[in-house]
């Protein structure tokens, strides 16, 4: 059993630009986004509750993924299924997990886990006070459930030692509990049901060939011997979209119930995650030698940057992002027949009263930043200094999601506009 198990089961809804593994919806994200999204939930809810929500979301989404893969691979007994889980973790870029589990629980050890390694790389002088790998804790619980054919959401797991706490390795303790209330699995059929009619994009002739090239390239991405994926100079993971969606919307729902005054702050942080994604992931991809070889070095032309951003979003599985209007430095309108956020929201949360694609909203603003304010020919370095310059100094853009599949609209549409009296000039 090797990582081809994962790569062979990769699939996509080509026109809508959603990715799957064994028909479970997935998306590629980099370590900058992964750390920020987790931190957003912890900032909103506190470390204890944030960890519980992140663990539960990972357990649910990995149960679906591991059980689907176990069926397809013909892994019938517990030993085979735990071996499958080890291989899957490496194939997704999560690191290496070794299990010592039975049907009542046990322990697991994690080496080179994506979140822990990324934290130490990004914040080397910041010692955490809580473990960072709730994603892997949920994965361990799901692996036990699938291996011993236990009910979904019945295993509990906590990370007891963590590299980011100064421990030598990451250690997890699992124990059998009462099953949580059942949730509906998110599969390809749910995504297909939510996705709206296709939208035509400006620059489509430029966008689609890049998407096809990137898809071919990412199809063969796999973890190294430690289970980390390094691509485009980033640590990359391919995780179930349900993980990201559930922790974000569970956190919002909890805040709406307990501290409604904090909801706008949480939504703003979720939008900022979109900034982090486009700036770090899209920026690093476009600055990488892989991009230079596959597509060509960025020219800085508006059309070149816009087409690149739409293509990267599609290839990573974020949805069919389309440019429907662009006025240089003034206005950008993006549409998508659905995003990975709006394919999830209606099936779990019901019909929304307001637009819900916060990541897409932030990503649209960041796309405008890359198009209108980044000097590509000067070979910008996509580091914290440039991020602060672009995003922390008071951005000149306003942003509104004017349509959203989550509230019954046929598409998701985000309008980014230059604020009155503002300029795109960076002092």
């Amino acid at each position, binding site marked *: 059993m090797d990582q081809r198990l994962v790569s062979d089961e990769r699939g996509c809804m080509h026109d809508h630009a959603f990715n799957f593994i064994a028909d479970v919806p997935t998306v590629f994200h980099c370590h900058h986004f992964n750390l920020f999204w987790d931190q957003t939930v912890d900032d909103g809810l506190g470390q204890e509750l944030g960890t519980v929500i992140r663990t539960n979301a990972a357990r649910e989404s990995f149960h679906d993924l591991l059980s689907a893969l176990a069926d397809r691979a013909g892994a019938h007994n517990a030993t085979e299924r735990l071996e499958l889980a080890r291989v899957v973790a490496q194939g997704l870029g999560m690191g290496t997990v070794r299990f010592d589990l039975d049907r009542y629980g046990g322990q697991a050890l994690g080496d*080179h886990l994506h979140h822990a*390694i990324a934290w130490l*790389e*990004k914040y*080397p002088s910041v010692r955490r006070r809580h473990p960072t790998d709730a994603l892997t804790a949920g994965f361990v619980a799901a692996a036990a459930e699938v291996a011993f054919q236990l009910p979904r959401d019945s295993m509990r797991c906590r990370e007891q030692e963590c590299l980011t706490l100064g421990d030598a390795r990451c250690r997890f303790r699992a124990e059998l509990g009462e099953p949580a209330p059942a949730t509906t699995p998110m599969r390809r059929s749910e995504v297909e049901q939510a996705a709206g009619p296709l939208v035509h994009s400006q620059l489509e002739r430029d966008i689609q060939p890049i998407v096809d090239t990137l898809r*071919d*390239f990412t199809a*063969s991405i796999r973890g190294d011997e430690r289970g*980390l994926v*390094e691509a*485009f*100079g*980033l*640590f990359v993971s391919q995780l179930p979209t349900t993980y990201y969606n559930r922790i974000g919307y569970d956190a919002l729902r909890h805040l709406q119930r307990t501290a409604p005054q904090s909801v706008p702050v949480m939504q703003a942080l979720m939008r900022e995650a979109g900034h982090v994604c486009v700036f770090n992931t899209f*920026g*690093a991809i476009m*600055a*990488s*030698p*892989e991009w*230079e*070889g*596959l597509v060509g*070095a960025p020219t800085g032309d508006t059309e070149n940057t816009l087409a690149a951003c739409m293509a990267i979003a599609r290839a990573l599985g974020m949805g069919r992002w389309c440019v429907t209007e662009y006025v240089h430095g003034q206005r950008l309108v993006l549409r998508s027949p659905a995003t990975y956020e709006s394919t999830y929201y209606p099936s779990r949360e019901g019909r929304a009263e307001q637009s819900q694609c916060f990541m897409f909203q932030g990503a649209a603003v960041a796309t405008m930043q890359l198009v209108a304010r980044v000097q590509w020919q000067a*070979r*910008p*370095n*996509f*580091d*914290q200094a440039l991020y602060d310059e672009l995003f922390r100094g008071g951005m000149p853009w306003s942003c509104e999601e004017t349509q959203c599949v989550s509230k019954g609209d046929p598409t998701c549409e985000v309008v980014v506009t230059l604020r009155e009296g503002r300029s795109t000039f960076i002092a």
Partner: protein
Amino acid sequence: MTVLTRDQGCRRDLLWRLHLPRDEVAHLVSALTRAGWEDRSMVPQVRDFESDEGHSVVFVPRTGRIQIRVFYLTAHAKREGVAHKVEAQIRAALAARTG
């Protein structure tokens, strides 16, 4: 070959940049292969080699751009030195071809 500089996207000294003159471009792949680097390229437009120590050389034949990726578990204080060592290995591999 140009001097070694930090590349775009470089954080904490992991990514370094070189540029190969046009007349050397055709020789780098065979030079690195002969010097024992593992060719793990997925496409011909982007060549990707790995050393025994886990460092990578990503090379764009069309433009001559080289990116050295220092193995991510290398201690921060040692990364710049490692990048220079890899640069020296690339130069030696090319020199061995002509020498």
